[in-house]
């Protein structure tokens, strides 16, 4: 399924990109986490949350075609 990925902060810096469209054979947010952790091992050292269509979601969240998914490192606003 096609997913629009967005990367921010230290994750964007580490991956060397801010967005891309991925086509992955996955179902849950946990599958996506596993994919990234295996592809980009440096992610393991970073605390990150995942948002789907602007909301933080748990690992059990089910993804849909064309979801906008972001990998969000620690917040630093304020």
């Amino acid at each position, binding site marked *: 399924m096609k997913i629009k990925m967005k990367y921010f902060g230290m994750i964007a810096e580490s991956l060397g990109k801010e967005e891309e469209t991925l086509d992955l054979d996955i179902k849950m947010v946990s599958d996506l986490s596993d994919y990234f952790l295996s592809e980009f091992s440096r992610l393991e050292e970073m605390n990150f949350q995942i948002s789907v269509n*602007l909301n933080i979601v748990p690992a059990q969240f089910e993804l849909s075609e064309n979801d906008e998914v972001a990998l969000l490192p*620690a917040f630093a*606003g*304020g």
Partner: protein
Amino acid sequence: MVKKKKSVLTKGAISPEIIAQSIAHHSVGTDIGAHDIFLGQVRADTANDKTVTAIEYTAYEEMAEAKFSQIRESAFAKFDLICLHILHSLGKINAGEICLFVFTSSAHRTDAMAATRYIVEEIKADVPVFGKEIFDNKSHQWKVNK
């Protein structure tokens, strides 16, 4: 009903003049008895002989604005507020410059003060804003809220 779209994220530092204008605009609000203002200022922290000269702020802008809207609605629901304004900087903000402006107004003091505190904590915890601390030797590190 058309809901006025307010943008919280703003490019560059927040100037004392903007803050003064915002205060001045509220002199017509004669039901207001109390204003409470929180300002976040970039600190020149030192770590390992390096000093922060600026923080470069980025955000997941669409999500951040949505979160700011939720915080705003929740603050109006929780506290007896008359006005509420929030500004957060994007881009490079130098040490000593202001990057966050939270401005609450109410009839009585306790509402404005409690609301400001609530809003600042919510912003720190829930809004996807990222900060790159730039050191005087041109190196950098990513800021993490505590």
